[in-house]
């Protein structure tokens, strides 16, 4: 059951990352996937299993600007999981992701 929920989250996250990165345009999204592969040996299909690396890669390139992309991805993820997105102070990508995980486990 837990594995099934984890798979649901991974699939939704993969889609959310794919769609959220589109705020950079298709070429921008491709650059991010290329960077993840080149610098972190992370393939496109494995990104959702390694969200920390994804966040690190974004922050390495965009600095504080990464927060905007992270927010876009989280919003897409919450939308897919049917969770209402509420902005929380001191909450970063991983905190929001953990909240989504808890929601799935409890639901």
């Amino acid at each position, binding site marked *: 059951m837990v594995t099934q929920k984890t798979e649901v989250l991974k699939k939704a996250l993969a889609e959310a990352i794919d769609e959220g990165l*589109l*705020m*950079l*345009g*298709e*070429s*921008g999204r*491709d*650059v991010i996937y290329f960077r993840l592969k080149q610098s972190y040996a992370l393939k496109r299909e494995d990104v959702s299993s390694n969200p920390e690396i994804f966040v690190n890669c974004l*922050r*390495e*390139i*965009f*600095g*504080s*600007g*990464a*927060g*905007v992309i992270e*927010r876009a991805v989280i919003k897409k993820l919450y939308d897919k999981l049917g969770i209402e997105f509420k902005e929380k102070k001191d909450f970063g990508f991983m905190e929001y992701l953990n909240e989504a995980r808890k929601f799935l486990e409890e639901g």
Partner: protein
Amino acid sequence: MLGIYKVGLIIAVGLTLLYAFQGFYPDFIYVFSNAFPPVIAGAAVVTSGLSLERYWRRAKGPFSTVWFYFTLGLFLWFIGEAIWAGYTLILGVELPYPSIADAFWISGYIPFFIGLYVYVKLFSHALTKKAVAITMLVAAALTILVSVALLTPVLKAEEDLTTIVMDFAYPILDLALLSTALLGLIIFWKGKLRKSWLLINAAILMDVCADILFSYTTAKDLYYCGHMVDVLFDLAYLFFLMAFYVHTKEF
């Protein structure tokens, strides 16, 4: 990657030395100061165009829009430089200011500002209200300071209205670009894109200084083709060229 910085440094030092020792070759510096700007501006257009091609290749997105406007702005500045060179080197006009070249330079600011604005707007949520407020306050203070500093020499010079408007327009438009570019630098300060934004800011800062000095020296009748102020215009194009190259390498 380090290569571009080394080449940039060599060109910047070389240009500065060339202008600094112009007393030994006044005829050459006259030709050089008029012929080189279209070359370096053209190189900046090509670099920006290559970035545009890269971001445009897959699909239209915010970055292709940004680079479309940057390339258009730089292209208009390049046309301005080419017209100035045509006036001075072909038609023998001593100081073509103001001229039709200014129409291109001034109109180049519009797409360039849009490009910067679209880029910064995309990441504007990363900015705190405090950062925006401080940047705007600094820009406003600088605009007032520059206007006040230019007021006496420009008005005393008894120039025609077009020249007076131009004397103020360039530095003020530069400061508008600088305030937007500063926001970009704040956003990307902790990321790899910092290098590119530092260079964009350096380029605009060169233009701010160059345009203030140009307005001052023309009003005081001190400007001549090959004046030391010209090196600042050349350095601005060099820094833009480097900024776009570095941006393409980092993202």
